[in-house]
């Protein structure tokens, strides 16, 4: 299945010049529906968790589609949808320096403090 390979797809070129050896198909100019990120609360009391994305024309459709795609087996009691273009993310390339300030602050953890074993309930 997904192991079928080489001859067919290996010629995928970078960015916008793909499909050069494929015949053009009529109606390719169709505008794409916006992309939405989907967050689902699996049960009351837990937080919403990112589960994936889908295309929809508006928020209502995104929520309905999210219900059909991501909660077919009662996986959720609440759905958030956010249009993907509004998600801003930290840059993974900067991760090392970005999170560096927390590295040398072990005193933020309770285990940093030396206390006698007799001390109970703390």
């Amino acid at each position, binding site marked *: *299945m*997904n*192991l*079928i*390979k*080489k001859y*067919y*797809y*290996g010629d*995928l070129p*970078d*960015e916008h010049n*793909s*499909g050069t*050896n*494929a*015949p053009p*198909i009529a*109606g*390719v100019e*169709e*505008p*794409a*529906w*916006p*992309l939405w990120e989907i967050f689902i609360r699996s049960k009351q009391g837990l937080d919403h968790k990112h589960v*994936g*994305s*889908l*295309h929809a*024309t*508006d928020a209502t*459709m995104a929520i309905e589609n999210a219900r*059909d*795609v991501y909660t*077919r*087996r009662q996986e959720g009691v609440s759905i958030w949808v956010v249009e993907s273009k509004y998600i801003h*993310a930290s*840059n*993974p*390339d900067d991760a090392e320096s970005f999170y560096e300030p927390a590295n040398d602050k072990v005193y933020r953890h309770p285990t940093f403090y030396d206390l006698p074993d007799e001390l109970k309930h703390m």
Partner: protein
Amino acid sequence: MPVQNREEIFQKKVDKEIRIEPKDWMPDQYRKTLIRQISQHAHSEIVGMLPEANWITRAPSLRRKATLIAKVQDEAGHGLYLYSAAETLGISRDEMIQQLHSGKAKYSSIFNYPTLTWADMGSIGWLVDGAAIMNQVPLCRASYGPYSRAMIRICKEESFHQRQGFEILLTLSKGNEGQRSMCQESINRWWWPSIMMFGPNDDSSPNTAQSMKWKIKRFTNDELRQRFVDVCAEQVKILGMSLPDPDLKWNEERGHFDFGAINWDEFWNVVNGNGPCNKERLEARKKADEEGAWVREAALAYANKKSRPPSDSVIGGRSLSTQSNEASLK
């Protein structure tokens, strides 16, 4: 940073089982391999709806019909999880669909075989979904985060598919003479195409080594195929049926079942478009796409109209809607 260093860092992360996420640097070839594999997988789920949809109206009971509809719905869902995962690599949904329709992207060859009898719903569940699961479980640990997460969700759902298939065959196997022979005949037709699903033999599958180094794949095609044959050779006994392979027998020394030679000519023939249903499947996908175009356009037009201030809607018309379409493309 020079590319070579980046590649080293990338490989170290992969070796340490740290998942690669969409915004992380990755080698071009890794990206291409994933796009190819994930999109072909997505296409397979979507095209895979067709052979089974064929039997929804003729399912023998309400229970079977409800099950089959739920299963076909699941396949649509699986296709969507995978398309979304592929999109995180920078290819658009539209481009993938075009590649399917133009024949540039492939899908699993198994779906180019026809579903001639009701027993085929059983064989597809047991053998085709069984082979898919064998393939997909290791993919839950694939190094690319969105792919592995999609696969975890898929595998969870796929298990009911296989069980309902086996149940169909089990019921037939306990039926009358006609039902039993329908069961056996169906197994006979699906067995060889199912074990072909694992792809070419390892010695003629040059991509496997690289994919394993990148931890996209965890086992070779032949390893997975052997595991599948071992499992099925036992399961078929419960059905009181047989697998259509005279060379199938337990090899004490290897601890595995030996099996007969696979007809790779048939495999490549079907891959290259000459299977019994290749044309029919692609036509059905194209027809669905073309005939659904007006729905997609109308939904977009409606959304644009709703999001415009009321004064604009009086001006309405083409030019405005074109503008907002362009805006939404960015």
